[in-house]
């Protein structure tokens, strides 16, 4: 906001110099970022063309674009992306809502929290992927088992993260509302929950990544569609073009979803942040 040149026509020389540097740094960063990407793909393409690396094993950008085109023409590109994204969003939402809900319960009852603590510790350290086969047998091979897999991976982390936020609320703030005679529910709605918007958002951010892990692992194990399925299938038939294409799509989709959460964060904590940072 300091940069609106119309309102402050008399910039000092030092200020102008400083602003010029800031701007330069911004563009330089962006330029080098793009450059890295371009150089990486160009080198990949050229090295593959010169047979210095074997495109059968490493694939190459031109083949990836061709594969993308083929998948699109077959009409299966968006089906695969759609299936995976749907499973991830479902796992993500259920994990967040259920995890936050359980965290509320544990905050509410000190006794339940104490009782469940060792179980949470064990479940948290257990590699949830080991549960994959059990889910498949219980639920059957299909999208449900995949969503449950994603849930298994993200749920415990969400509970612990959000509960930790709830418990770290300044006890003096709680005392303040207690002096007004607040009951347990009021303590939660007036202090604990609003004070924890950012820790819940943090849990969301972690969850996005974990849900992707869960879904891809799930698809590795059971699916007939989705990006994870394409990766496994491509590996089995030694079609590295398909594998690389799927990985790239995955990277873009995961990044977009993460940005979605960041956008949500900006919306939700606008007031706190805006005034907090000034």
């Amino acid at each position: 906001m300091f940069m609106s040149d119309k309102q402050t026509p008399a910039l000092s020389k030092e200020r102008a110099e400083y602003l010029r540097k800031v701007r330069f740094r911004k563009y330089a960063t962006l330029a080098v970022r793009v450059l890295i990407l371009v150089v990486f793909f160009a080198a990949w393409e050229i090295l593959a063309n010169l047979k210095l690396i074997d495109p059968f094993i490493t694939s190459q950008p031109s083949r990836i674009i061709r594969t993308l085109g083929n998948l699109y023409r077959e009409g299966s590109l968006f089906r695969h992306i759609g299936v995976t994204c749907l499973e991830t969003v479902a796992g993500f939402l259920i994990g967040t809502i259920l995890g936050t809900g359980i965290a509320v319960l544990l905050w509410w009852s000190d006794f339940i929290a104490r009782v469940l603590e060792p179980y949470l510790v064990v479940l948290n350290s257990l590699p949830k992927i080991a549960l994959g086969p059990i889910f498949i047998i219980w639920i059957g091979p299909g999208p449900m088992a995949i969503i449950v897999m994603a849930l298994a991976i993200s749920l415990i982390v969400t509970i612990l993260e959000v509960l930790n936020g709830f418990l770290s609320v300044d006890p003096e703030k709680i005392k303040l509302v207690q002096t007004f005679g607040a009951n347990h529910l009021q303590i939660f709605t007036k202090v604990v929950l609003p004070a924890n918007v950012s820790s819940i958002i943090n849990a969301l951010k972690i969850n996005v990544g974990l849900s992707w892990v869960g879904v891809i692992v799930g698809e590795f194990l059971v699916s007939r569609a989705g990006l994870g399925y394409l990766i496994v299938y491509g590996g089995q038939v030694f079609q590295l073009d398909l594998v690389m294409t799927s990985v790239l799509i995955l990277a873009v989709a995961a990044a977009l979803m993460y940005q979605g959460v960041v956008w949500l964060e900006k919306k939700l904590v606008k007031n706190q942040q805006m005034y907090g940072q000034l």
Partner: protein
Amino acid sequence: MAEELVEVRNLGMKYQSPNGEIEAVRDVSFTVRKGEFVSLVGPSGCGKSTILSIISGLLKPTAGSVRIGGEWVRGTSEKVGYMLQKDHLFDWRTIYQNVVLGLEVRGTLNRESREWVLSLLKTYGLYDFRDKYPNQLSGGMRQRAALIRTLAVNPEILLLDEAFSALDYQMRIAVTDDIYRIIKKEQKTAILVTHDIAESISMSDRVIVLSKRPATVTAIHDIRFNLKERTPLACREAQEFPGYFNMIWRELDVHV
């Protein structure tokens, strides 16, 4: 003589923990008259805040009793307003929303109480800031807002628990003056807990000196100044001040 509003009798408090028992308060008795400003002074960690928590009804004593306006204290009471060390204004609420917090919690936020709050904000110069967030206010204004939050529920007695001690020294003296005027103007009874001797003398009609833990009453002093208009700042410069200070200092028996 004005009526006795608060009556603390033979108060005792023992905290239990797995590591043992801590006796914080032992056989403390005193009374506070309506409109009086009383300070509890004692060394840090002596259990003075415990006494306030008991008076407010947040804590149950293990011995003795407290009566406010003749009624036994059982749980938090609408007659009591509590001011904590920090202002604890909520970042996510505007000043107005912060100030009505107590009314909201008690379920007494209506047109009448809303107008009362707005009039308080007007009187104490925060009306124009009612839609701002706490981070946009100065330390002194934040303390005012915190006081108005307490006054909004219209308590008969204010408990100030090391209030203002989170502020830096200069700010604290100014805020103390400010808050003192408001409390007097609203004709509230107040009990201040502090380890700051100067602060207690400058604000109080009576100072109750407490011993180290477990807190017992060492002495009770009437503080009188020959001043036309009493303010904490004027008291600090009055000729009676050093005498009171030295006496209480000796009674506190501070060792390094």
